[in-house]
């Protein structure tokens, strides 16, 4: 029984020692230099950022010394295991939102995303409404001719005479058939 307990203790301590001996083994990879991320891995993130100094120049192609250091910083952060989002956030924190290729969706910046579609859809709506009115006035002469339409005819809007070139072309095509 005592023998069995000694064996159990031996096994227990052996595990402890083994476990303790593993600790440095586990931490070694974190301390040793990791393989440096490639230029392509760095550029994949740098190309999504703009140079904080030279406006409108993507970071991956900016030739300044500062940008070279920033690319090295990205390399270093990648080596530390940082994600693309974390690296981008770092640049935004230190150099402002202008490093991003699109403004963050917050505050007044929402206007950049909202104004063009709203303006365009307003244009679509206005044109649609106007079109319905124009179409009504175009169909009116068939039922009730009025002076306005006769004025329209004067300006050359009679459909039959609208496109003499097309009419001639189509007539010639018909003759052949």
């Amino acid at each position: 029984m005592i023998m069995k307990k000694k064996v159990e203790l031996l096994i227990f301590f052996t595990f402890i020692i083994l476990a303790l001996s593993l600790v440095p083994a586990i931490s070694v990879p974190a301390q040793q230099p990791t393989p440096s991320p490639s230029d392509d891995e760095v550029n994949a993130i740098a190309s999504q950022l703009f140079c904080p100094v030279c406006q409108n120049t993507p970071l991956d192609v900016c030739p300044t010394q500062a940008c070279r250091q920033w690319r090295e910083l990205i390399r270093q952060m990648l080596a530390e295991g940082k994600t693309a989002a974390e690296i981008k956030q770092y640049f935004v924190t230190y150099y402002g939102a202008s490093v991003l290729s699109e403004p963050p969706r917050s505050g007044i910046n929402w206007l950049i995303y909202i104004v063009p579609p709203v303006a365009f859809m307003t244009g679509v709506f206005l044109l649609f409404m106007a079109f319905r009115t124009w179409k009504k006035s175009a169909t009116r002469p068939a039922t009730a001719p009025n002076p306005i339409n006769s004025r329209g005819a004067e300006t050359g809007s009679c459909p039959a005479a609208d496109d003499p070139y097309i009419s001639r072309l189509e007539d010639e095509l018909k003759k052949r058939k």
Partner: protein
Amino acid sequence: MLAQFGFGVFILTFLLSLFSVIAAVLGYFNGSDRWVEAARRSMLLIFPILTLGTLTLVILLVTGHYELEYIYSVTSNDMPLYLKITALWGGQAGSLVLWSWLMSAFASAVTLHKWERDRELLPWVIVVISVTLSFFLALTIFFENPFTRWWQTLGGDFILRMFAPTGAVPVFPPDGQGLNPVLRHPGMILHPPMLYLGFVAFVIPFAFAIAALVTGRSDDRWIRLTRRWTLVAWLFLSLGLVLGMWWAYNVLGWGGFWNWDPIEVAPLMPWLTGTAFLHSVMIQEKKGMFKQWNMLLIILTYSLVILGTFLARTGVLSSIHAFSQSSIGPVFFVFIGLTLIISIALLIYRWKDLKAEVEMSSWFSREALFLLNNLLFMGVLIICFWGVIFPLISELVTGQKITVGPPWYQRTNGPLFGSLMALMGIAPLSAWGRSTFKTIGRLLWKPSIPTVLALAAMIALGIRNWIALVGFTLVAFVIFVTLFEFWRGVHSRQKGRGENLFIAIWRLFGSNRRRYGGYFIHISMVVMAIGILGVELYQTTTQKLLATGDDLQLSGYTLRYDSLTQVPNADGSSLTSAVVSVFKGGQLLGKLHPQFATFPSGETATVVGIYSTLADDLYVVLIDWESISPAQAPFKVVHNPLVNWLWIGSLMFIIGILIAAGPEPDKEDLRSTRKLE
């Protein structure tokens, strides 16, 4: 002495220009033809005199008068003659001189005619052109004088003045700073003059539009008179844009041709309104409708032309192109504001006179589709304008800079560009007034068959990206519809008149240059779209430090670094040039020489090595910002599928405009010929 002479010439032309304005206004209000004639002759005089002034500046540039600040900043002893001449537009002051000179050339061309038939328009055409010219000449004289020289004061300070300050002595630097290296490229030598030609040519239709508004002429005479001017403007503006893209592709070394930089978007904006205008004037000519809208479009185009120059030249957007900052910003701003307000006020004043009964018999009539085209172009304009202006507003409000970059523009514009392509496919099949869904559908099925086959081929080839499938299908659709339209016309002539194929094609284009020239331009546009889609969707890139003999792989190509040479140039710069071999499938395709020049100032200019085929470009940049040695050199390699179709499409586009701008057959002649037949 020469500088003072040049400055004097500019003052003289400025006074002549002001005289033109006053004489034309007096002539109009007093009903005096003599005053109008005096204004016309004064305008005619400006061109030769301003040519003299511009030539003076060119002589100063070529002979190295570095005591003048402008000459000092853009030329140097080592620059070749052609670069010294083209340095005229290498900086801000010279660019404005070029603008004025081109404007005066166009003004003279317009006023060479006596305009007997349209005498009433002439005074106001002169007023608008002369006011524009006076503004640019005033900028040169009062703000950006290229004849300003260096002086040293008694206190030892160096100052810039036109005339000698008391006690100061002139300074004669032995050499200048030289032109910015990235500007020493044929693309950038030709880009500004082309862009400016486009800009100033758009002033002519605007001037006639304003003249029509002031005189109350509500017909489409002003449009017919300026149709060719508008096409010329459009041609040069388009050429300017394409040359800018070509320069960016070959010089910047970024791998692309368009980065939605505000300075690229600025000249695109008048192009968009100009293109919408070119289409919508046809509705007015054919149906007498939308007169106010056409006026508004040409007013906007003019304002955007001035805004384009303002954005590029005042440094308000600090970007790679805005090389210089200057004090002319507020002046520009006031001029744009005033001309826009006055023009719009005139339009409102004449609103009722321009009102015409609008009738639309069908949603699918040609006029309806032209309107849709205008809506889409205005949509793209809103996006571009907002993308350029919003960062300035945001900075003003929050104090923080933001960037509106390519992803935003691509995502927002993409659907509109796609819709425009679809419209290019449908509109040629529509007729004025009477097209319906049925009539278009009847014509559509024939070109739809090869389009569907093209789509099937793309799927069979393994294309799965839905944007590519939609984009390339639309390209095929436009090409097949347009070819179908050509075929209908040619077939009709062959059968009806017994003409052979080539004569039928020739005469078909001759019979309606505007229509068929326009269709040809549509094809050129979608050919350009092939290149744009290829690069936007399928571009791949890699960067690697290569030791001699090492290679890298990209998209089926293998690139091997062979050697590196560094040689000093006679102009003090040194040229670093690499030799790389390009292989595909183990076979040597050729050798490329990517290089860069380093100038004494420390600035560099890249020369990209490109292996080019109709299918793709292998684009190799010897990176000048990383450490480099013969033993190992860093390369950035970009694979750009189909990019050359962009340049091919551009050349086709020029041909299309030349077809469209050619002389229309005289309608009287045609009638008499038909009678004889």
